[in-house]
């Protein structure tokens, strides 16, 4: 009735232990890789936290870092256990710890799978954080004199140059905000006064964009101002002009960058998870095979290894029973302590 029984003779047991030892040390390496991936993602998120309003969620990189460290610890411990498993004297001191250790390993694997899923699913929250952050960033673009926000212009300019994007969803976002500081506006000029009077909030709105939106691949020198006025520029039609400015919005550009980063990290973590599951199964087989050695004096004898002693359903029932017993014994002990009577069960 045991689940997936396999017969083990001495040679097979030794081979299993050696193979597991090697796999555990590779897994320590994989844990270090996951740790560094998490660290890299954390640094990348921090680099651009200005355009994300400093409110981005660091859950994914933090959990990757944690999982990497845990994986290193658990797998080096498992490596030590597998190394000692070949020597009956050394193995005897590990014997009582192995069952709880395997339970912890199973929990760790489940946690690793959840972290992998998170890597793929974080996209949605990142999108809304980026939308808000970029909107605020563009709003503070002109505040180069306000302490605490004076760096926003530089940040947005360098972002648009590096990611080849313009505005939040497109370059028209710049038409709706005042991105030129009042300090550099000549208020005696009629044009400035007209523009300020033309809208309710008294803002100086132009149909122009900052220089960082310019696309170097354009065959003509960059047109930044009077973008919707075809007659202001020779041989220019704003409806058909495509190469003048970057067409992508920065939200989409940043989102695709971070998504591809997290997707590749998720793929690597998935592979590591599969590796870890294999190691846990192998460790379980080694544990049961060594338990099954009937005669401790004769190391050459055959034994059986299995995943679960009974079938899945029966094991689950037995597990629930033991939980109930645990609960009952606690209850009865409490009653017994009060009334001074002997416990009925447990």
């Amino acid at each position, binding site marked *: 009735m045991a689940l997936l029984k396999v017969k083990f003779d001495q040679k097979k047991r030794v081979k299993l232990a050696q193979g597991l030892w090697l796999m555990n040390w590779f897994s320590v390496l994989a844990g270090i890789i996951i740790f560094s991936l998490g660290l890299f993602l954390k640094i990348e998120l921090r680099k651009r936290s200005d355009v994300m309003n400093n409110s981005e969620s660091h859950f994914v990189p933090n959990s990757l870092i944690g999982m990497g460290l845990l994986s290193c610890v658990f797998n080096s411990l498992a490596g030590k256990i597998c190394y000692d498993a070949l020597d009956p004297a050394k193995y005897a001191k590990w014997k009582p710890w192995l069952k709880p250790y395997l339970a912890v390993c199973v929990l760790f694997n489940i946690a690793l799978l959840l972290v992998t899923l998170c890597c793929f699913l974080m996209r949605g929250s990142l999108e809304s954080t980026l939308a808000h952050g970029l909107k605020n960033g563009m709003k503070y673009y002109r505040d180069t004199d306000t302490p605490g926000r004076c760096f926003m212009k530089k940040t947005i300019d360098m972002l648009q140059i590096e990611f080849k994007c313009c505005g939040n969803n497109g370059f028209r976002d710049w038409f709706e905000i005042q991105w030129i*500081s009042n300090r550099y*506006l000549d208020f005696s000029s009629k044009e400035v006064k007209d523009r300020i009077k033309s809208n309710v909030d008294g803002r100086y709105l132009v149909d122009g964009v900052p220089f960082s939106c310019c696309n170097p691949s354009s065959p003509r020198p*960059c047109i930044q101002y009077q973008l919707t006025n075809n007659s202001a520029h020779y041989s220019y039609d704003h409806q058909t002009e495509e190469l003048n400015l970057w067409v992508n919005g920065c939200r989409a550009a940043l989102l695709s960058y971070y998504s591809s980063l997290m997707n590749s990290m998720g793929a690597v973590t998935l592979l590591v998870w599969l590796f870890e599951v294999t190691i846990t199964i192998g460790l379980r087989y080694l544990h049961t095979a060594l338990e099954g050695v009937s005669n401790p004096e004769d190391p050459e004898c055959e034994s059986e290894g299995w995943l679960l002693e009974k079938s899945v359903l029966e094991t689950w029932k037995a597990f629930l029973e033991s939980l109930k017993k645990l609960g009952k014994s606690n209850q009865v002990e409490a009653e017994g302590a009060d009334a001074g009577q002997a416990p009925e069960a447990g």
Partner: protein
Amino acid sequence: MAPVLPLVLPLQPRIRLAQGLWLLSWLLALAGALALLCSGHLLAQLWHLHTFLAPSCPFAALPHVALAAGAVALGTGLVGAGASRASLDAAHYPPWRKVLGPLLVVGTAGGGGLLVLALGLALALPGSLDTGLEEGLGTALAHYKDTEVPGHCHAKRLLDELQLRHHCCGRHGYKDWFGIQWVSSRYLDPNDQDVVDRIQSNVEGLYLIDGVPFSCCNPHSPRPCLQSRLSEPHVHPLFDPRQPNLNLWAQGCHRVLLGQLQDLASMLGSMLAVTFLLQILVLLGLRYLQTALEGLGGVIDGEGETQGYLFPSGLKDMLKTAWRQGGVADTPAPEEAPPEEAPPKEGLPEA
């Protein structure tokens, strides 16, 4: 026929020599690998900047030669490590005996020659960068407007990306842009009086303006970038002449690129110098080890003392032996063969 620079090597010093040689060989391999990486990096940088370097500039030869020198140094290091390891173990040494001689010759002639050549180039070539960059950047600036001329249509994009990435403007400063026409004639309105005036105002009929392309703009400036009419400060409201530098990039691309490439070349040069020193030490050590073990007849653990040397006899004697060997091969006189076989035979075991 006294050996050149002999060194008495009993067993313990021989073992010490082999162990020290093993360490030095790994250091040489590391230095060779670093020189390889450094020259690869320089090659990548040059590939990015090849439009801005005049084709006549010989600087591109340096990373190629350094690449070859680094590879040979890496090989020498690995061989040295293997040979010194084998010399401590009697079972593994015999296959190395035959190979070591030719390897030493190749290492000295090939590796040493390449390293000396690379070092020489690293010292001499950076001087040619100045004129090469001057010419290359001048050509790129002149062709900025030729976005429709095949062969030069990428000049605008590459120059814009260069100025954006390296934070520079023009060749020596932003005023370089005032002296060339960087707006393509295709986008100039022939009916505009201002355009006609400007074209007629100079001999060559160029449309010159006191403005710069957008890529010269400095994002650190607190105000939106001022690109046009830079010679007339009164046009721009509240233009603060005390702070002109923040608006555009102050440095010229010539100085920035020259500094960058010269720094890379000097780093490569120092790497090559270290590799050269290590290579000399390793080759000397290997030669002494080889000749000492030959003196024992290839028996490693022999307790006897042997002599290691650089050359079996002085240079004159070696040339005489080589000449005689060549002479015997040429003259097929059988009656003189037996007495003449003896001297060449004497010469052979010592070589």
